[in-house]
């Protein structure tokens, strides 16, 4: 459906290897922003002044460029590869998957010992899995391992890898092309999946007045026996986090977003509290603190090779953020912390 989103989903970049994603975003945004820098850890920071010079208000939007994946630990003589996870890989879904290794994208398959497959009683830990490249070579320890999966349409949905958080990068890139009363800083961050490392550094440097992390988040809307939370659901609009393991949202920002959505008839949902964490975790603790919130596109099967998301949710997330930035989010926060 969308060329930029497709390019971002296909790009490969685990924590510490975000160069390819960064290059795509640089090229895309260079004509649209006033300033574009890369810091020492690899964050891409883009800036654009506000349209209303009387407004002194700096909003930072953050989306992380890295995806979950692996790293080559050792290359054996027979061409098999030991790897370890970079970020939260789920060992249950790894056996039999196709991966690509290193800068040259050498293809390989994840294999496990036949006896482990036969008994199937125990999840095979990543340390017992290997990648077989058929002895291809062309990579070395430290190189990244990424899932291999096409970007395509599945009925009304989109399928691809790394929607967490390339969909956030996409929404952020599109927002940077617009014009808002406030100063807008886009932080495409690194190393979110291994501890929200890039975002804290970016927020320290940017010193925003408020911040919003744009994410692809868990949708757990498969049929269930019990009436419990789906975390988020596809097709019900952007998800707004009140609290997760990394942060409490600033409730004023939550209200700005929910009221903006209601005013413009944009569907929205609360994400199940207490689940996951986002760049907000380090952003809101930068310097003297930054009021912040996370807004996300619901995605099924994140952290696997093939995530699904609903293009209407992507559109509604973009619309919500754009309306909010043109409205109350683009103006200084009133009132006290709640």
């Amino acid at each position, binding site marked *: 459906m969308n060329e930029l989103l497709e390019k971002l989903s296909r790009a490969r970049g685990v924590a510490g290897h975000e160069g390819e994603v960064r290059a795509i975003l640089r090229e895309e945004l260079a004509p649209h922003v006033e300033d574009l820098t890369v810091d020492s850890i690899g964050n891409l920071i883009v800036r654009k002044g506000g349209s209303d010079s009387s407004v002194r208000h700096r909003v930072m939007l953050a989306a992380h460029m890295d995806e979950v994946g692996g790293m080559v630990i050792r290359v054996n003589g027979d061409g098999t590869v030991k790897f370890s996870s970079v970020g939260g890989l789920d060992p249950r879904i790894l056996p039999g998957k196709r991966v690509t290794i290193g800068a040259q994208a050498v293809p390989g398959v994840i294999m496990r010992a036949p006896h482990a497959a036969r008994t199937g009683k125990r999840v095979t830990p990543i340390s017992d899995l290997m990648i077989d490249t058929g002895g291809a070579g062309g990579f070395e320890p430290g190189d990244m391992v990424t899932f291999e999966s096409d970007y395509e349409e599945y009925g009304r949905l989109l399928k691809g890898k790394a929607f967490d958080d390339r969909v956030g990068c996409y929404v952020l890139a599109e927002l940077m092309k617009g014009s808002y009363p406030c100063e807008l800083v886009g932080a495409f961050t690194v190393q979110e999946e291994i501890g929200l490392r890039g975002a804290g550094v970016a927020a320290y440097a940017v010193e925003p007045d408020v911040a919003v992390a744009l994410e692809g988040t868990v949708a757990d809307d498969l049929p269930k026996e019990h*009436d*419990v*939370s789906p975390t988020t659901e596809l097709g019900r609009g952007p998800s707004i986090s*009140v*609290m997760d393991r990394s*942060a*409490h949202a600033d*409730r004023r920002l*939550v209200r700005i977003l929910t009221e903006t959505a209601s005013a413009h008839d944009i569907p929205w949902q*609360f994400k*199940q*509290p*207490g*689940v996951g964490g986002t760049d907000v975790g380090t952003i*809101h*603790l930068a*310097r*003297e*603190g*930054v*009021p912040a919130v996370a807004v996300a596109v619901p995605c099924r099967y994140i952290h696997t090779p093939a995530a699904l998301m609903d293009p209407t949710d992507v559109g509604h997330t973009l619309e919500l953020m754009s309306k909010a930035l043109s409205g109350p989010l683009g103006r200084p926060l009133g009132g*006290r*912390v*709640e």
Partner: protein
Amino acid sequence: MRALIEELCSVFGPSGQEERIREVITGHLDGLVDEVRTDRLGNLIAVKRATVKSERGKRIMLAAHMDEIGVMVTHVDAQGFCRFTTIGGVLTNTLIGSRVHFANGVEGAFGMEGSPLARERPTPQKLFLDVGADSKEDARVQVGDTAVFRSSFGAVGDRLFAANLDDRIGCAVLIETLRELESSPHEILAVFTVQEEVGVRGATTAGYGLEPEIILAIDVTATGDFPQATPMEVGLGKGAAIKVMDRRMIAHPKVRSWLEETAQAYDIPYQLEVLEFGSTDAAAVQVSRAGVPAGTVSIPCRYVHSPSQVADYNDALGAVRLLVNALGSEYPS
């Protein structure tokens, strides 16, 4: 101060929603300090300027956290039962039988899936809250709403019982210290912090913003004085505790000896504390910017993070005396 402790323990204030407790504490600061403000994360900062000119006067941050542990609704089912997640270090095995209440006054009781006779050890996924509703529409709470543990405040002699002595008793000690501290060579930055229970977040940003020269946290600590407790010297009624080490921090030796020497000089009973789990706001401020000498004055408290916490009033009084005497004199050179 007893009435103050009881009052503070009755105010709603889970981590992330400290507005009510902040308002109540602000009321008690009237006339005690030179300046009161709220920062970007919601920390309440009260500044009391030095009354005695001294070259050895310091900028001393005192931190007591306003927030308390609680639960947050994650899902309301068709029958009106609520699933929840915990806020801070809630002990799952204390939930059955305890009661929570929401900001709007709604009460909640914990229930568990399955037969009440064949009870296994509860996991949070198997528990739910009964908020007195028969349907989702009928429920007066929604996803994102929070509740705190409530049991009636009680006292047996000088032993105090409440669900949130952690750290309302510390807040009371800090307010009382500001009241009794008549003169000081130090600039006192009294901070009632937010979000301590979810990772000392308020102290992290307040410490950065205030750039204190010394940080003292005022918080509760565990004890080793009940059957089969983890071996630990601290007990109720033996005085305030001066921290040596906890899970995240080792107190600065000079801050510790300043407190110890003050206690000895004024004949204030005290105990030394090595805590193997948990930490305080001081741990966050200690590593703020280029580092801040840190210490903690602790009020011993049994059953911390359960809905029935027990402390001794005399230890709180001792903590006030220790703080007032330490802050009233110069910091050793």
